[in-house]
């Protein structure tokens, strides 16, 4: 799960990390009021989950309260990579001696976490990693043993900043680790983290992602979810306990099991088709889940065909087929449906589908079904 900059900033602030003074606004006049309280100049920053807001014009400097109002008017309502800006963060302008990157991520390869600090801040860390890897300093954090202040200091003293700033950075890293672990985060980033001319330091940006599986015990994190920032169909799928990813093609895909659905996408793509989505109804294939899945896929814009791929395991194919027929009889499905079914009682299942009188095409192999789906999707 992602949250907005202003929400991550407030988590950092509660943890004791120094953050630039700021306030949020939903209207230009609110933005002006925040700026008047903070004092100008300020930066007005679009709050969206997607990256690249700077290049899209979503961050503006303003030197007077009326400039703040103008900037906020321009940014609020702006569309950035499909996200509509509904909130801006108005932030004091900070004097900058040096920009750094501080971060912590879940480290899958080492089964732990990595704390990352870079003397090149304000730009994409992956870019730094590719071009000037010597500017990035990493330390592994053991999930049980934790992160000690001396580990933070060792990284901080390598950044080539004044000693006073290094000690502040070490403290910030320790606090960043604490808030990361306490909130079941998977990523926390401050980019840039700024050293001021007087050698004090402050966080200018703030980013956090969280482990969806841990939200059951992170109620205050979960309450920061902004579903307005998420794909509406992904939200609907999540509520129905389905795994869904929008892909943009014209062949709707439904299957049971993540690996099987991924493979279905691959086969459809290999056959020249363009999957509209990934949709996994889970290891089973209950009629209710199929119905919810169909409702979601039918909302895909430009949908031409639906391809259902089911492996009958402990649930038998004839039961699955009866469920499908039941669902389709109640629903109005304008697109043709291609069904591939295999596993337990596949022959009986295929017969039930073929005899249903519904507009369903059945195939015993993924490859054949995919070819047919791709053919039907051709305009």
């Amino acid at each position, binding site marked *: 799960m992602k949250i907005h900059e202003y929400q991550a900033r407030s988590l950092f602030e509660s943890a004791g990390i120094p953050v630039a003074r700021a306030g949020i606004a939903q209207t230009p006049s609110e933005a002006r009021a925040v700026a008047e309280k903070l004092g100008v100049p300020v930066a007005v920053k679009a709050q969206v989950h997607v990256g690249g807001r700077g290049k899209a014009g979503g961050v503006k400097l303003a030197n007077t309260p009326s400039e703040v109002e103008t900037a906020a008017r321009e940014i609020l309502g702006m569309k950035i990579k499909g996200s509509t800006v509904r909130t801006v963060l108005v932030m004091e302008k900070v004097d900058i001696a040096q920009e750094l990157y501080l971060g912590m991520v879940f480290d899958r390869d080492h089964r732990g976490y990595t704390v990352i600090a870079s003397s090149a801040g304000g730009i994409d860390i992956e870019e730094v990693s590719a071009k000037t890897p010597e500017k990035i300093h990493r330390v592994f954090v053991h*999930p049980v043993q934790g992160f000690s202040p001396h580990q933070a200091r060792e990284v901080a003293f390598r950044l080539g900043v004044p000693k006073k700033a290094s000690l502040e950075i070490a403290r910030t890293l320790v606090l960043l680790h604490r808030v990361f672990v306490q909130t*079941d985060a998977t990523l926390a980033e401050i980019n840039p983290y700024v050293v001021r001319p007087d050698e004090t330091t402050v966080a200018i940006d703030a980013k956090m992602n969280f*482990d969806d599986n841990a939200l059951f015990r992170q109620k205050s994190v979960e309450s920061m979810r902004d579903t307005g920032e998420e794909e509406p169909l992904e939200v609907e799928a999540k509520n129905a306990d389905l795994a869904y*990813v929008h*892909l943009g093609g014209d062949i709707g895909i439904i299957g049971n099991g993540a690996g*099987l659905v*991924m493979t279905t996408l691959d086969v459809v793509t290999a056959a020249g088709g363009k999957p509209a989505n*990934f949709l996994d109804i889970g290891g089973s294939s209950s009629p209710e889940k199929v119905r919810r899945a169909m409702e979601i896929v039918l909302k895909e814009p430009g949908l031409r065909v639906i391809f259902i791929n089911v492996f009958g*395991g402990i649930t038998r194919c004839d039961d699955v087929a009866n469920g499908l027929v039941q669902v389709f009889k109640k629903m109005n499905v304008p697109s043709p449906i291609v069904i591939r079914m295999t596993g337990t009682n596949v022959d009986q299942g295929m017969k039930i589908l073929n005899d249903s009188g519904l507009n369903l095409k059945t195939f015993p192999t993924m490859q054949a079904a995919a070819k047919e789906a791709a053919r039907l999707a051709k305009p």
Partner: protein
Amino acid sequence: MSILVDSRTRLIVQGITGRDGSFHARQMIDYGTNVVAGVTPGKGGTRVDGLDVPVFDTVREAVEAAQANASVIYVPASASADAILESADAGVQLVICITEGIPVNDMLRVHHLLAGGNITIVGPNCPGVISPGKCKVGIMPGFIHKPGRVGVVSRSGTLTYEIVYALTQAGIGQSTCVGVGGDPVIGSKFTDLLPKFEADPDTDAVVLVGEIGGADEEEAAAWYTRSPRRIRIVAFIAGVSAPPGKRMGHAGAIISGGKGTAKDKIETLMNHGIPVASDTSQIPDLVKKVPG
């Protein structure tokens, strides 16, 4: 022979009084698995309808009363890490965790607390382990399997069934099939299991079913050429067409920072002499043809 589970497996079912636990306990017993006890805290001394299996409050009691040596976990995600640790503390040597949705931090703790110990963990978020004809531990449909000399290791569930069923229909039986799980932090990786197959005289070849995300397939490829190997490996990778940055169902199936693409994995496997099927339907033929 086989790996991990066989006729000597004496299994505990953690969460046996739940819906999934009781259903699959029944299925496993019907397959012939020796389910010796169940555990649900607070339900010790009760019975599950239709099951002739004693239920205990703690794994330690179950192990002591029934000399169990393996455990399968069907408890809610919030309690699963603790259930694994409980089995480990009670001396169980093999824990197979079916549960999906366990927080990453919990599995990191489990991994590091038990690292260096004598225990094998399979999963979580996996279908389980089956040695056809001997012992089934998990949720896979038993009938699609057939005893034989090919091992299967897979990060997926139904995709594995699909591949196993294809093998069976082509007359190729399996020694043991292991679902390693679809999470980013799992107990046994390919590289933990391949040496067990290598040491099993009744396994000739292994089908490795990978997917996008992580580097487990690359590690497996490196393992394969590190020394001369007796077993042959055939691979399949799901997610060739998956976009970067999107979690494809499994928590572990995500291309992040440009790493973990299917293309890279397939290339690495082929470079290490492991044939990769471009289609699941090719797998049985590849297994037959692969040089011994």
